[in-house]
């Protein structure tokens, strides 16, 4: 396989960048999933062991990490719907750019609702 010349940008613009973002978010979510199954499996060790590991998820730094995780999931989910519409809807390729802006709009609305609620749970008097 020949090496791609350095510094090229494929077609760039919305189509490529949404594809890159879909890859990056999917990759991150997968590794969280491996960790999350491992930490949850501590319920089979003892209540104390599980409570200790889930306690680490409640500290502020992890709380911000969870915000990033939810953001990655929300983007991946909404953009995944867009990918399906591009693939299966006859007008999908024509409107893929507009649909990306709709995805970003829904992403902003969802995160605007989730972020204050989660930060209050993480930072609010516990």
């Amino acid at each position, binding site marked *: 396989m020949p090496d791609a010349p350095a510094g090229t940008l494929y077609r760039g613009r919305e189509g490529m960048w949404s594809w890159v973002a879909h890859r990056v978010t999917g990759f991150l979510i*997968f590794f969280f999933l491996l960790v999350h199954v491992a930490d949850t*499996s501590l*319920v*089979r060790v003892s*209540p104390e062991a*599980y409570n200790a590991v889930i306690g680490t998820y409640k500290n502020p730094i992890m709380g911000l990490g969870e915000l990033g995780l939810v953001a990655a999931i929300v983007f991946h989910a909404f953009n995944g*719907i867009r990918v399906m519409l591009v693939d299966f809807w006859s007008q999908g390729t024509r409107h893929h750019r507009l649909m990306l802006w709709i995805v970003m709009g829904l992403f902003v609305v969802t995160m605007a609702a989730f972020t204050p*609620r989660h930060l209050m749970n993480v930072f609010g008097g*516990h």
Partner: protein
Amino acid sequence: MAQTVTPSALEAPRSPRSPRSRRSTRTNYELYGWVFMRASGALLLVLIFGHLFMNLWVGEGINAIDFAFVGGKWSSPLWQTWDLLMLWLAMIHGTNGVRTIINDYAERDATRIVLKSALYLAFVVTVVLGTLVIFTFDPCPPNAPAELLASFCTA
């Protein structure tokens, strides 16, 4: 005038593909994978948004999660089934996605084999572990302090 290609060098449009090129695509597994990513993706959207809503939004959100919370949830066949389905679909969907990424970026054969072996090992270990945990979980383990357990354990 530009040099023309002799007709014999080109196959006629829509002529049957040669046996050689047909052999290189003799299965449809990549097509099934492509369809699975879309079908499982739609299901995972519902399963994961429901999971995040129940665990991070309702009540005190993440502060409410502890052993007793998991005990309460997994006493219900609904959430057992929900989490089992989520585990399997997410692991297959994620493993197939990472497999695609490895195929795209790891150019040496040996690198691809090592990375994909590690990926498939992680898949088997995680799916087996998660499935066993869901099916063998005891919400009221004996000898555990009662204050760490769901209220129905002592009722």
